[in-house]
């Protein structure tokens, strides 16, 4: 599973002005890499994240996900791609508040067409894996922030995607919970998942083996596995 972006631009039309949120991104992420995407707000890193996560399409450029061109896919095809290949972890958890942790984790499997029994078995397995097996019948508002984020991670893992996209996963957590969550990501990386982490905290970014800096819609620094590569 590799990610290959070339010449990606995202241009917004605001009034009669055109604004390029992304201005020519070339990026290659290998299978199993743990990358941190950093940059100040307004730099375009969220836009890049959305395109990487198949939530959005670039205006121009090519995005090959595992050899498949996804930049031109339709809405429903993108939805299927997200469902199969990408697991999301958000800053504000984004759990459904009315259903239990267990059902939240099982949700991606509903759209994957997995039968109910198998869904609940898998969901229970991943809840155990993040250490919340005993709390699976709790609703999200009965859980702490750290616990909610662990439910969200279990949800991201349940359909066995190769890529995990984490958008400021520790942004709403205290230091202790942040550490626990990042430990989980480190273990996932060790188990071979490709992880893309968006953060503005350098401390958190150190968990990743590769650091990318986005500024003004361009990647201005790419330090992979201790090797400094200036691409400016």
């Amino acid at each position, binding site marked *: 599973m590799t990610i290959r972006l070339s010449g990606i631009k995202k241009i917004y039309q605001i009034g009669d002005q055109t604004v390029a949120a992304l201005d020519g991104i070339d990026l290659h992420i290998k299978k199993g890499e743990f990358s941190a995407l950093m940059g100040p707000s307004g730099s375009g890193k969220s836009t890049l994240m959305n395109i990487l996560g198949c*939530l959005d399409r670039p205006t121009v450029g090519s995005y090959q996900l595992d050899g498949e061109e996804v930049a031109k896919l339709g809405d*429903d095809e993108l*939805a299927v791609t*997200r469902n199969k290949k990408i697991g999301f972890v958000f800053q504000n958890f984004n759990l*459904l508040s009315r259903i239990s942790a267990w059902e939240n984790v099982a949700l991606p499997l509903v759209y*994957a067409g997995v039968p109910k029994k198998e869904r609940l078995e898998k969901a229970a397995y991943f809840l155990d894996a993040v250490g919340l097996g005993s709390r699976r019948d709790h609703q999200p508002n009965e859980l702490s922030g750290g616990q909610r984020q662990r439910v969200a991670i279990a949800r991201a893992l349940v359909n066995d995607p190769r890529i995990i996209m984490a958008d400021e996963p520790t942004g709403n957590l205290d230091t202790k919970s942040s550490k626990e969550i990042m430990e989980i990501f480190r273990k996932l990386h060790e188990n071979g998942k490709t992880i893309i982490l968006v953060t503005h905290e350098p401390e958190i970014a150190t968990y990743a083996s590769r650091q990318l800096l986005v500024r003004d819609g361009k990647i201005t620094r790419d330090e992979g596995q201790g090797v400094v590569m200036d691409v400016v």
Partner: protein
Amino acid sequence: MLFSESIRIAITALLANKLRSILTMLGIIIGVGAVIAMVSIGMGVRQQVQTSIASLGSNMLIVSPGSSSSGGIRGAAGSNVKLKLDDSDAIKNKIKNIDYVSPTVSSSYQVVNGNQNWNTTVQGVTPEFLLIRSLTVASGSFITNQDLTSRNRVAVIGKTVASNLFSDNPVGQNVRINNTPYKIIGVLESKGQSSVGQDQDDIVIIPLTTGQERLMGITYVKSINIQVSDPEKMDQVQSEIETLLRQRHRIISEKDDDFSVRNLTSLMETMTQTTTMITLLLGSVAAISLLVGGIGIMNIMMVSVTERTREIGIRKALGATFQNIMIQFLIESVVIGVIGGIIGIVFGCMAAMAISKFGGFTTVLTAAPIVLSFGFSVGIGLFFGIYPARKAALLDPIDALRYE
């Protein structure tokens, strides 16, 4: 995504806002209930009218004399004297598909018992009159063929006449008609008012021959009532009678009939048409409230979609397609329609029964309005759910996830 899964999600969502769901359903409940109750009232009126017309005698043809004309001056309809008892016998013997033929004469007389007197219609009839008018004798007996051939002075009286002239049982007593005593041999069962407001119990019945020869001094009959055995054959029998009578009265082809044959089916049709109109009117007024209920569903679904923008965003990020979201919200609004419809049917049937029990109306519950209004309420749930569901399914996942 499985269908049963979608229904479960929809019901969970509806249960999360119980009061709101119930209030939305209320529109549908009232609509469906009103349609069922209103139509049952309309059908009740229709049934009542039909029974009262049938009580006049079903499948009836009435032959009456045409107008007389002497020296270019035309008399009133029925003043013609050419319709005879022989005509009636000829119809009975020569025309098929006939159950009964009942010729009558009638006139108004002052009837007297002791110091009581009463003005009423005296009808001279044959024994078939009892059957053709679906009359029953409450006490005593009816006129027989023996009475007819002997021209006996006997009478059968209606309830109104009996109560106005007698304080005890009138059977066996005498009543004077035109100063001649008639022996009362029977009293009729009360039939009440006819559909045109005439008291059907204000009547004195005597043998036809007695009436013609002893009371009125005439040789013709005022009308011949004919009961046709098969309602499908009404028109055929009617034209056969017309041909037969023209032949018997020697009317040459270019001249008009000197009699007229009428039937009650046209009256029945008019009344049925009128009551169908009433039913439709009541039903459509009620259907408007069903439509308003549907707009209520749409309104609440719009609110629901806006409220759950974030949920939609999450579901889409996790892989829900346009169709998944569309179906989820459509099923939610259809479920409102289905549950509202079912409760509405229960309420509507209860209302219809309560109206007939306490309100004094006859109500008739039939399957058609129940099935129709249920189908309509489900359809309304579907129709008014499409726009909000589409709006939900078209949401951009990024915008939806950002929505606060």
